[in-house]
């Protein structure tokens, strides 16, 4: 089935590349105690996801909302913390907390718990194209009837381990990070709910996205999509067929 899809919500967090990186605030309505054990990336993902859902008038999101997360590198601070513990104390005393937070699906798992999303849940890791690939997976899921709508989140952060690795490889370290969230649903559903339509979504071709780092790693493309959908940029990235709605104010 080929459904007309729209973006009804969008949000982004993109601190200046190389500059200071202030965490976004925990959204109103989220008890800070529930995120006290969250990772930094988990809190950032929650902030952009909540903002996009609120913009889409989906607060709270129904539990059958699909959640698709794109990340190039997952949380390298957690991986480094895990390996650092092994180095310092031995593998016998490795940290289970660092381990479970180091997996690529950690942000999707944590967001699902915090937002009570019990439907389709996927983490896509497609290098610098991770955000676009996550959007493509979300479109497939909605078109296939696996969920009535999808929350798509792209996120990648800075880390000392990444900087060290890039240096070791002789690659530039742009020390950028970012996160973006989009809400994808059918035009009919958005109209029925009276939700705002930020843009019509024609499709996405991740292979057209740049395969090199533009500073925010796997989150770069979706940050650009969100900026365009929110009217903060004059053009959508070439990889995404997106038409800003004339209704958008």
């Amino acid at each position, binding site marked *: 089935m080929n459904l007309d899809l729209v973006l009804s919500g969008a949000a982004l967090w993109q601190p200046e590349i190389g500059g200071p990186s202030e965490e976004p605030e925990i959204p109103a309505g989220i008890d800070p105690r529930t995120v006290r054990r969250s990772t930094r990336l988990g809190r950032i993902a929650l902030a952009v996801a909540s903002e996009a859902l609120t913009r889409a008038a989906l607060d709270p999101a129904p539990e059958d909302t699909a959640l698709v997360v794109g990340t190039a590198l997952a949380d390298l601070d957690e991986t480094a913390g895990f390996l650092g513990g092994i180095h310092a104390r031995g593998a*016998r005393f490795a940290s289970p907390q660092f381990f479970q937070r180091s997996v*690529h699906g950690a942000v999707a798992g944590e967001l699902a718990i915090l937002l009570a999303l019990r439907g*389709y*849940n996927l*983490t896509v890791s497609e*290098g610098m194209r991770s955000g676009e690939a996550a959007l493509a*997976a979300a479109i*497939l899921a909605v078109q296939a009837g696996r969920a009535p709508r999808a929350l798509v989140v792209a996120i990648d952060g800075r880390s000392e381990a990444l900087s060290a690795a890039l240096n*070791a490889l002789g690659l530039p370290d742009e020390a950028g990070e970012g996160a973006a969230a989009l809400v994808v649903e059918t035009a009919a559903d958005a109209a029925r709910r009276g939700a705002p339509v930020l843009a019509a979504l024609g499709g996405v071709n*991740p292979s057209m996205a740049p395969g090199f780092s533009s500073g925010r790693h796997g989150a770069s493309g979706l940050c650009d999509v969100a900026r365009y959908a929110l009217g903060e940029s004059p053009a959508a990235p070439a990889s995404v067929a997106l038409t800003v709605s004339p209704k958008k104010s």
Partner: protein
Amino acid sequence: MTPRQGAIAVTGLGAVSALGPDVSAMLDGLRAGRSGLGATTRLELGDLPSRPVGEVTTLPGSPDDGPATHRLAIAAATEAWRSAGSPAPPLRVAVIMGTTTGGIGESERWYLGRLAGEAPDASALRHHAACTVTEASARAIGALGPTMTLSTACSSGANALTVGADMLRSGRVDVVVAGGADALCLTTYAGFSSLRLMSDAPCRPFDRARDGLNLGEGAACLVLERADEARARGATIHALLLGSAISCDAHHMTAPAPDGLAVLAALTDALDRAALTPADVDYINAHGTATPANDEAEARALRQVFGASGPPVSASKSFLGHTLGAAGALEAVVTVLALREGFVPATLNTESPEDDAPADLVLGAPRDASIRVAVSTSFAFGGNNAVLVFGRGDR
């Protein structure tokens, strides 16, 4: 009955596992009731005790192909692609792989060496990202269509099949090579050890005395095509993927939700998409990790859907170990072989099943059976649940 959405044909199979280098070796091992679990010969364990693992004793390919995960993936993708007869032009072929480790086995050596003040070779870091596993697989078979890498921990390989089926139904491509790959490494060995989820003995799924899982490694790929087109080209159809579903517990990062409701939802949704009922299912290839919590939650969900008796059930991790991102794909191949060859694989090591274990848990030796419909389940960190429903290829 016709699936609600078009059936997908499985026209190629590839698998490298602790049972051997290809699908034929896997089938032989399953038929013989021969476990692939044993002591590691390759893994550097640090100060951790040696526990049984499902190791691929001779890695396929060469170090030039990349880290172990990549070599396993390339071998499985190549076997699957060749067995399907290379059925489409490169631009119409997608490759979708699940993995949890990617190249971490090499990266961890570099990072630990750096912490130790050494100057380790960094070149292997180019293979760190998960997507490099998929790219290597696509290059090996000459595929030029979309690639997608899924990393939903232990359900990754199963989810690759669901996404692949949806991509085929969308018309975006004509063939999908979908599967999963993961190699043993210190990070996962120490990680599961830290969670106290590993057994010191060969795992005993659904046993009263079960005390944890055994890690494993391997890769599996399935070549998927739209069934009507596969029939039209005269392809060998090993099985049909009739339905599938993904759900999330939204409960805990590493522990399954005790109520099993999200697993129940995935089972129901997958059967509904296949236009089948629980009574139609002749065999269940369970996730069956042999951890106390997982098996308890899975047994409860299976009982809720299939009733107190239910169809025959087996847990292949007693042969293969828990291969993480590869598990869902390897167990999909086991399930397809069961359908194609007409037998229910055994569960090894289990001697005294729990009271609430599946009633017809097939123990010790395989059982000949005509299977028309089979279900494979996979569950993962993050509460991610995946269910696949296969039917016989001649349906």
